[in-house]
């Protein structure tokens, strides 16, 4: 096995990978920015090296420094996680040049799939259906794009060539609004990926976002691990994923799985990867892009297949054959993932930062939490707002939804606002329960019930009691501040103990 693995990432995914390494008994190296000294990935690794200041460009995107650290500490492999350097051809190539195994595909496959336009041309050549769009070579100017747009037709999407996760993506309804949207998309793409190139794509209406997880080894073996339905998105950011898709049948699964394997093989793909498709209501499917890396939502596939995808990535990179054949892969039960973001659903989903003073994660049967948050950690404004993934497994989709409800209700995070109430509302929504949703569902048919004009309150008198008791207590405390001596005789025994403890 590898002598030592450097994890070139932060947050929950760095922790996920460190755990897989530890479960192999492989020593690990973490890297961190100045904002992340107390992060879980630094605490869990065997070694940890400071990269630089908080901004990504000065830390987690510093490929040169990272390779230098790997060399100096004797790491013979690097796992890039997702985001940051995971889909940079140059980084994979630089690892190779330094004699370090990049745990992922070959640079050529990253290059082919990483530039969305090349990707489309490549898979089209392997007769995989694609969404109509600007299929030319990269780097089109605004003028070119504005000229081409009417040929695709509106509505259409601007997408970042280097992108993913909805960053640098804009929806365009008409030619008039396109210049401003191009500018902001390029700005966001530049900031997120260091690359402002964008391309255009037809917007498939009523579509579901369904993706196929692929594993491929160095000996030409490739399998698919079923699909994930990621249609619950907001501003093109995935929020909830499930496996299997409630929309899917076995016939379509096999058809899309076979096409996905073909797409991967068209670039001689090795390691774990994901082929994203749009599927319209008539079950026509179109290749969207390939993510040449581990996916945020990989756990739902792990829970229904029993395959440890990160462990398999490491084995493949080490030159092992796949541990599974296609016929070994069986889907069992149902899994759902909710991405817990530090965002306030009652305030336009604005990011929320601060010191987490309490974190109580849900536990018990069928519940998995992948997170880097604990009581006492600071959520900084520098990185992605996703702070945890709550994943549940159930024998059926119904059981999984009920289990997710109880897990969401148990979850306590104090110090930042989270989108947990959004997920709770979604789990109660009849359309979600019925599996009746598409990629526009959140934006077009869903809102937080509290923000509705005609809101229905379930427990107003209980809410009133909570607020009044807290307000009363605060008022008492203020007056006690004046009458200091009486403080210790306060009726409110719940004030005292914790404060004494931390005095």
């Amino acid at each position, binding site marked *: 096995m590898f002598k030592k693995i450097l994890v070139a990432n932060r947050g929950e995914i760095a922790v996920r990978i460190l755990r897989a390494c530890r479960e192999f008994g492989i020593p690990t190296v973490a890297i961190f920015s100045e904002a992340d000294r107390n992060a879980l990935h630094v605490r869990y690794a065997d070694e940890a090296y400071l990269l630089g200041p908080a901004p*990504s460009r000065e830390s987690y995107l510093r490929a040169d420094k990272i390779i230098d650290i790997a060399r100096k500490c004797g790491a013979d492999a690097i796992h890039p996680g997702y985001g940051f350097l995971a889909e940079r051809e140059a980084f994979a190539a630089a690892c190779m040049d330094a004699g370090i195994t990049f745990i992922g595909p070959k640079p050529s496959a990253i290059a082919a799939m990483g530039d969305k336009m090349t990707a489309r041309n490549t898979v089209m050549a392997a007769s995989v259906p694609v969404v109509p769009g600007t299929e030319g070579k990269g780097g089109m100017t605004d003028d070119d794009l504005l000229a081409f747009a009417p040929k695709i037709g509106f509505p259409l999407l601007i997408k970042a060539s280097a992108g993913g996760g909805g*960053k640098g993506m804009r929806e365009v309804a008409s030619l008039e609004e396109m210049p401003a949207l191009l500018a902001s998309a390029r*700005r*966001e793409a530049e*900031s997120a990926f260091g690359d402002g190139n964008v391309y255009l794509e037809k917007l498939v209406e009523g579509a579901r976002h369904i993706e196929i997880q692929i594993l491929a080894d160095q000996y030409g073996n490739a399998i698919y691990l079923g699909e994930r339905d990621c249609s619950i998105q907001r501003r093109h950011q995935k929020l909830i994923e499930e496996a299997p898709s409630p929309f899917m049948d076995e016939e379509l699964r096999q058809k899309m799985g076979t096409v996905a394997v073909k797409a991967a093989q068209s670039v001689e793909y090795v390691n774990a990867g994901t082929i994203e498709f749009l599927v319209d209501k008539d079950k026509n499917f179109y290749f969207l892009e390939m993510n040449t890396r581990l996916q945020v939502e990989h756990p739902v596939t792990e829970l229904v297949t029993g395959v440890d995808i990160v462990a398999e990535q490491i084995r493949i990179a080490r030159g092992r054959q796949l541990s599974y054949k296609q016929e070994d892969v069986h889907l069992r039960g149902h899994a759902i993932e909710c991405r817990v973001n*530090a965002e*306030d659903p*009652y*305030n*336009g989903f*604005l*990011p*929320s*930062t*601060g010191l987490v*003073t*309490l974190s109580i994660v849900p536990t018990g049967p069928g519940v998995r939490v992948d997170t880097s948050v604990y009581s006492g950690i600071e959520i900084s*404004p*520098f*990185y*992605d*707002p996703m702070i945890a993934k709550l994943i549940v497994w159930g024998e059926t989709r119904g059981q999984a939804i009920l289990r997710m409800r109880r897990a*969401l*209700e148990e979850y*306590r995070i*104090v110090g930042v606002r989270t989108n*947990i*109430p959004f997920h*709770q509302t979604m789990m*109660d929504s009849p359309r979600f329960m019925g599996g009746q949703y598409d990629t526009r569902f959140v934006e077009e048919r869903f809102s*937080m*019930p*509290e923000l509705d004009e005609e*809101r229905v*309150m*379930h*427990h*107003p*008198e*209980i*809410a*009133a*009691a*909570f*607020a*009044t*008791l*807290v*307000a*009363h207590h*605060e*008022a008492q405390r203020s007056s006690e501040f004046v009458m200091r001596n009486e403080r210790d005789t306060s*009726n*409110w025994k*719940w*004030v005292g*103990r*914790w*404060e004494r403890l*931390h005095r």
Partner: protein
Amino acid sequence: MKYVTTIDDKEFTVEIIDERHISINDKMMEVDFQSISGQPVYSMVIDGKSYEAYVYEGEDDWQVLLLGRQYPVKVEDEREKRLKSAAGGKAQAGGEFQLKSPMPGLVVAVPVEEGQPVEKGQVLVILESMKMQNELKSPRAGKVERIKVKAGESVEQKQTLLSVV
């Protein structure tokens, strides 16, 4: 101690009787109220029912997050409220709105100018934080004044960015 507690247009008279009892609209209830770990998460057992809620202090109200729903709650001392309404009711309706930064971040753009009239929902500032661009919008129609930041500046949480009057 008696309070008038309002959610939307529903008014409750809540009286704190002693450590173990409150009444809501004159209905007496047994209550056991505890803070969880000294945090603004509270456990309340009220007439045998067990509830838990986050209670956050807002500008002039409380936000209660209870069973996945958020309630904006106004709590007023009954005596004060009586005095105030005798003195002529709402004083500050339609005052100045100060746009404060909801989080630390980088100002990407300020697409309005001082003196410019704006609609409700119009974008006042674009702020980048957590790798996302966030549009800060006007909560009502009015006129922009006192712009205190410009594109490229870093801002702290709760820093005042501009006003709408």
